[in-house]
């Protein structure tokens, strides 16, 4: 058996457009369709794997099974309606998705957002980041450990902790999942009385239990064997592919929009993003662990420093539902748990009531675009671990 395919490295890059007929005429290649109905593709993602034994020779990704035409729909909806469907894009962190489109709308409409709303948004974003990363860690455990094994235990622990954050959100907005709590020019729900008595213990418990999770997963030799040096994405490839968020930072890209291009209230606090250089599955996992700790710290800061004042300023607009933007175009990026969620907006459609074009830059699609590069040369089992470590959300990638 010839194993001329090696995993991606800077010296020996993988050709994602490899003609398999030229690979090795004698090899018995096998085509394996991973997905769209597969428990470990995190949704309905399909990878066509061409295998030589158990080694992947070529990987072809097929997203689009969850394509719902959100961008087309946004051209028909009012600005205030859009955030409610953007919620459903990245269904693991809906809170931040609402903020992304709202930021673009506010920038073009010239709406001044009150300071309290900015701090509240940052606070909610950090909670959402913890919840989202907990899911990422748990499902990665599921990917390497199996649905009937230690991975499932890690998954259960993570979901138990995430429940506390959902409780916190429910107390604030009445919803556990698709909050619809941001509007153009501010927020809809103010902090309820005694909220901090619920929030602070939850943060403490999550941090304490995170140490247990690290003990169970990261300090476990089997886990280390499965993740260390697997699916390495060199920095240059990560830059070219546009790998943002923990995936990019695990490859050594020291860039976090919260610190480098501050929005909301991030300019007023010090953000210390977790950066690692290994670029393998373990680094991506550890980056997320570190980010949970950092987010818990930031959330405490934002909660303690939450300024007084109104949470919604509707100055140039009569009400939050009557946003009208005649013209203009902008690109706005913010940092979700997955990476840079960009919104490219051309205003002026539907007599100024809807966007003319709303393009969402989904970080997950960029992460998935890396699989033709990093899967070849790896074992079939590693393909699952790599896919899981990228933490894609198909709702966002396919839109």
């Amino acid at each position, binding site marked *: 058996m010839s194993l001329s395919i090696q995993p991606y490295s800077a010296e020996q890059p993988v050709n994602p457009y490899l003609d398999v007929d030229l690979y090795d005429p004698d090899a018995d290649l096998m085509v394996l369709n991973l997905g769209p109905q597969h428990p470990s593709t995190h949704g309905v993602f399909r990878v066509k794997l061409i295998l030589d034994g158990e080694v992947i020779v070529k990987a072809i990704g097929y997203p689009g099974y969850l394509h719902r035409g959100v961008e087309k729909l946004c051209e028909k909806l009012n600005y205030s309606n859009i955030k409610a469907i953007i919620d459903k894009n990245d269904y693991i962190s809906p809170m931040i998705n609402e903020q992304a489109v709202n930021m673009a709308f506010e920038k073009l409409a010239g709406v001044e957002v009150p300071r309290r709303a900015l701090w509240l948004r940052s606070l909610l974003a950090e909670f959402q980041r913890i919840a989202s990363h907990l899911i990422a860690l748990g499902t990665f455990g599921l990917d390497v450990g199996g649905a009937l094994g230690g991975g499932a235990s890690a998954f259960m622990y993570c979901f138990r902790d995430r429940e506390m954050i959902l409780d916190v959100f429910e107390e604030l907005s009445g919803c556990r999942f698709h909050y619809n709590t941001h509007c153009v020019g501010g927020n809809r729900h103010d902090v309820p009385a005694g909220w901090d008595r619920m929030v602070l213990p939850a943060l403490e418990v999550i941090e304490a239990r995170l140490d247990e999770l690290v003990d169970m997963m990261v300090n476990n030799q089997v886990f280390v064997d499965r993740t260390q040096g697997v699916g390495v994405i060199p920095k240059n490839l990560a830059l*070219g*592919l*546009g790998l943002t968020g923990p995936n990019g930072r695990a490859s050594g890209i020291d860039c976090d929009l919260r610190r480098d291009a501050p929005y909301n209230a991030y300019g007023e606090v010090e953000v210390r993003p977790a950066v690692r250089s290994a670029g393998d599955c373990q680094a991506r996992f550890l980056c997320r662990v570190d980010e949970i700790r950092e987010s818990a710290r930031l959330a405490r800061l934002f909660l303690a420093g939450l300024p007084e004042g109104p949470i919604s300023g509707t100055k140039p607009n009569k009400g939050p539902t009557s946003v009208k933007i005649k013209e203009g175009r*902008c*690109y706005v990026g913010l940092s979700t748990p997955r990476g840079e969620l960009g919104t*490219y907006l051309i205003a002026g459609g539907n007599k100024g009531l809807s966007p003319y074009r709303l393009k969402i830059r989904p970080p997950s699609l960029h992460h998935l*675009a890396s699989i033709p590069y990093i899967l070849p040369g790896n074992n079939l089992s590693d393909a699952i671990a790599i896919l899981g470590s990228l933490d894609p959300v198909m709702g966002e990638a*396919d839109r």
Partner: protein
Amino acid sequence: MTTAEKVAALTGTEVQELETEFVVAPEHHFALAELLQSEGYTFYITVAATHFAGEVPNKKNPEGSPETFQVATVLRKPEPGASSFACWRVELAAGEPIDSLVPLFEGADWQGREQFDLVGVVFKNHPDLRRLMMPEDWEGHPLRRDYAIETAHPPWR
């Protein structure tokens, strides 16, 4: 010489600030991306194509207007402490192709395919220009202005 001045020299357009979208002629598109990459804008962020349906001559617009496309590209400078991005657009006539950035940025592959799929902009020198989101046998490009949502598309509807 600042980056903005270099960009202005290359493209022959007034560029004050790279973060405010500026217009570039199609022939300068690839060279501009190359310049920006060497200037530190190494982070591939996104590409967004937009379709502008033409108008037949009418009362408001007696001349009528042709069908055009605009392709906006965003690159980011990943500098710790002060990250900024560059955003420019290329205006294309109907059917005119645009240079693909795949030789510079691997990420332009899928992003280009997505815009080709949904808007119908053709990318030159793209190694693998296929539909990304819609089924392979889909007809039409959904994000065009003249593409009706209500139209049925058998067998998908």
